[in-house]
């Protein structure tokens, strides 16, 4: 028998030998990762892996999906990702302050929107500790983004928990294939100053490195009084850096390493709809190996995210979360024969957070999962894709238990097992018509705060997370029809969604003494809706788009939380009608774009002494615009504006947002 230490040493030597052997055989570039640029150029349309894990043309995916290319991102004039998403049909954006927005797909938007999973190049930037995306701290520069992929409807079968209303995958340029060198400076109203830079260096396709970073300052809208406490300030700031390196190990294998860091200090509307002041510090480290083998496309990914959220709420109460997530993924996508492609994947996830504001304990879970996908090309015009995923979450808690606390650490020793699936039938009925029938089940996990990360004791009330929460499930049934009409594309969808065991911030009560309120599964919700969009171009110089979404939601909550009493209401907060339109013009060195958006009268939640109440939010119409002039091949000057139709406008239950203008000088080299 070989001694353990010798085995260990041998394994390490073998790993080192393998690594350096791969380096030694480094060769010219062949595409193992998806070369989005080359494939888009070949097929004349964007490509994606965000629907099934298999590379596919945007028009062939078994999902309702929108892809926003880099050109549209630039021409939107937006200074952040939510500003871009505001234009996308079916996407809801609640802008609370200059730097804080919550985003969802097909309604169900709320403060700390939890149903939309957000990723950058497949790495989750969604914060598990409170189930939201801190958009202002996402470490990506818009100039480094190739496309933003928006999947509508659940996609838990591919991405796991929290891909319930949809997924946004931000795809950046691959430094090995794409030279992106850009410096951009922006100044604007509200004291806005922003700078961003991206640089790529490479060695004839053997390796490449991209460094991007940015920073910015602004003074928030003057429509609110900043939260209490020593951190009270109207000024927001953010800074981020992203280093992405990739090595072509041999003709069939690539290895990439990404490190990011960001800091954002922002006024925001918190989960209780109160104004708060947040500092987010995020870091991540990710390694990824891609190989094109005789057994298919093999991908191994490992990453860790660190997110520290320090918040002072409107009562001056500080709470500090330190969220750590580690994810290990292994997947193989294999074309078995002309008609069948399969994907098999394994994932292991470890998440943990320290309790706050009463520290001294940690909530954690380990989640192994397996998933599979089968894409069957039944005939040249019909394809059927089925995907399924099973997660088994093992919850735990360690650390102090306060006197009178209603739970023991052993109460966290439980397993939450859930499965999600996606099934999509795509029928290309004619050269111009595509029909999709989609059924899917997505899972929203209780966040770590809900599961016990949040403990507050005061002389007046006590609240704690609850280890007995169930996951919430979303079933989605959908029929889509796309039709090419000359140079225009018509896209339609009708959907029915049933959400069960919705997670609420309150709703549970443990009688004392001492008594505690807890988060709870507060009931179900049904949504019915339809979307129609039309996009096109004419006269070589003009492009346009228009979309309309109708959606009606019926919440079936327990009495204690009905009508917004306890921080959750989807029925009244989601607008029934949403209209968006855009028009763009290009001539020589000039380009001009305008985007308008309208939503019907709805309600918003606003805090009370005991919870929240509904207040009306009148229907509104507003518009963003940008005009750009290319001074020379490298230099572009642009003027853009947001919320142009009114100086102040109430769009949510939060502070009114204000008109903004930006002037931007951007150079690419």
């Amino acid at each position, binding site marked *: 028998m070989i001694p353990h230490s010798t085995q260990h040493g041998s394994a390490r030597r073998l790993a080192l030998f393998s690594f350096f052997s791969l380096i030694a055989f480094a060769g010219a570039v*062949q595409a*193992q990762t998806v070369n989005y640029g080359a*494939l888009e150029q070949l*097929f*004349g349309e964007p490509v994606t892996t965000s629907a099934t894990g298999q*590379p596919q043309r945007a028009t062939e995916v078994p999902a309702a999906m929108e892809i926003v290319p880099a050109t549209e991102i630039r021409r939107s004039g937006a200074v952040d990702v939510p500003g871009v998403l505001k234009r996308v049909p079916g996407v809801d954006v609640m802008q609370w302050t200059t730097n804080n927005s919550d985003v969802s797909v097909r309604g169900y938007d709320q403060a700390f929107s939890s149903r939309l999973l957000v990723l950058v190049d497949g790495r989750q930037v969604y914060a598990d500790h409170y189930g939201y995306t801190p958009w202002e701290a996402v470490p990506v520069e818009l100039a480094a983004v190739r496309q933003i992929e928006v999947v509508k409807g659940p996609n838990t079968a591919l991405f796991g928990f929290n891909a319930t209303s949809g997924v946004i995958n931000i795809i950046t340029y691959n430094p090995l294939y794409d030279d992106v060198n850009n410096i951009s400076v922006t100044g604007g109203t509200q004291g806005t100053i922003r700078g961003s830079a991206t640089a790529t260096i490479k060695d004839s396709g053997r390796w490449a490195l991209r460094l991007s970073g940015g920073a910015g300052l602004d003074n928030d809208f003057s429509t609110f009084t900043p939260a209490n406490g020593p951190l009270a300030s109207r000024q927001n700031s953010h800074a981020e850096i992203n280093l992405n390196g990739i090595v072509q190990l041999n003709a069939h294998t690539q290895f990439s390493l990404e490190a990011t860091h960001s800091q954002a200090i922002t006024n925001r509307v918190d989960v209780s709809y109160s104004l708060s002041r947040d500092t987010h510090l995020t870091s991540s480290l990710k390694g990824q190996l891609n190989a094109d083998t005789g057994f298919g496309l093999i991908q191994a990914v490992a990453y860790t995210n660190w997110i520290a959220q320090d918040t002072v709420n409107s009562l001056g109460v500080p709470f500090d979360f330190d969220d750590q997530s580690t994810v290990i993924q292994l997947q193989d996508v294999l*074309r078995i024969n002309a008609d069948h492609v399969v994907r098999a994947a394994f994932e292991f996830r470890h998440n943990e957070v320290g309790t706050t504001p009463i520290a001294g304990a940690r909530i954690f879970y380990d989640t192994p999962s397996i998933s599979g996908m089968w894409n069957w090309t039944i005939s040249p015009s019909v394809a059927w894709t089925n995907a399924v995923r099973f997660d088994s979450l093992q919850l735990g808690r360690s650390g102090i238990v306060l006197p009178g606390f209603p739970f023991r650490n052993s109460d966290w020793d439980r397993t939450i097992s859930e499965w999600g699936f996606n099934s999509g039938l795509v029928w290309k009925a004619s050269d111009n018509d595509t029909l999709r029938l989609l059924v899917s089940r997505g899972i929203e996990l209780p966040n770590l705060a809900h599961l016990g990360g949040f403990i507050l004791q005061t002389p007046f009330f006590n609240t704690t997370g609850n280890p007995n929460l169930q996951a919430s499930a979303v079933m989605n049934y959908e029929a889509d029809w796309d039709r090419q009409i000359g140079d225009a594309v018509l896209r339609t969808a009708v959907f029915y969604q049933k959400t069960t065991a919705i997670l609420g911030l309150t709703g549970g009560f443990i009688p004392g003494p001492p008594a505690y309120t807890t988060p709870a599964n507060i009931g179900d919700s049904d949504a019915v809706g339809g979307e129609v969009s039309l996009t096109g171009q004419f006269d070589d110089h003009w492009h346009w788009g228009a979309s309309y979404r109708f959606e009606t939601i019926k919440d079936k909550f327990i009495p204690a939380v009905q009508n917004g009493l306890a921080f959750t209401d989807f029925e009244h907060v989601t607008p029934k009608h949403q209209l968006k339109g855009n028009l763009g013009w290009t001539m020589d060195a000039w380009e001009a774009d305008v985007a308008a958006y309208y939503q019907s009268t709805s309600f918003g939640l606003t805090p009370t002494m005991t919870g929240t109440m509904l207040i009306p939010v009148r229907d509104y119409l507003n518009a963003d615009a940008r005009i750009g002039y290319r001074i020379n091949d490298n230099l572009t000057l642009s003027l853009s504006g947001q919320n142009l139709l009114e100086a102040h406008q109430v769009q949510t239950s939060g502070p009114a947002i204000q008109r903004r203008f930006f002037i931007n000088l951007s150079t690419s080299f």
Partner: protein
Amino acid sequence: MRVFSFRGLAASIALALAAAYPAQAADDVSLADLKAATRSLGFLQNPPKSGGYAIGVVYAPGSANGKILSQQAADRIRSLPGPHDGGLKVESFAVSELAGHADRLDALYLVPGTSGSAIADIARRKHLLVMSNDPACLDQRCCMLMVRDNGRVEIVLDTELAQSADVSFSSVFAMMVKHK
């Protein structure tokens, strides 16, 4: 004063038709078709070890139209960038010259109407990728990659024929095209 002449008119019409004919013929192998075909080369698993791709644009012997098409297609390919910033070396010749062709070739492009079992045999022997924009070439088993762009790019790969010629594409490409 110029005098109207029927002979002059007839000659003008004849010249116009002659001029128009190649243009019409060239539409049978459009620039868009050729762009898609040459871009597909970038996904080959075994690219040339040095230099750019050498492409033979092939036509049926004795076909005057085929020869014109072939020469025009070759001219158009020369104007295109090769994959990975590599160049494209292109020549036009008849199928009958293929067996005796001495220069290095990486791929053949068959203009419509070109067929013959000799093509597949030589492709197998010389490990050549054979492309065309003519779907009939797949049925006749003369080509392994049909690439055309009629507003929407359509790519069909004959996997069996490609394997027999030891021609393979990246898995990503293979997953995104149709298979015969």
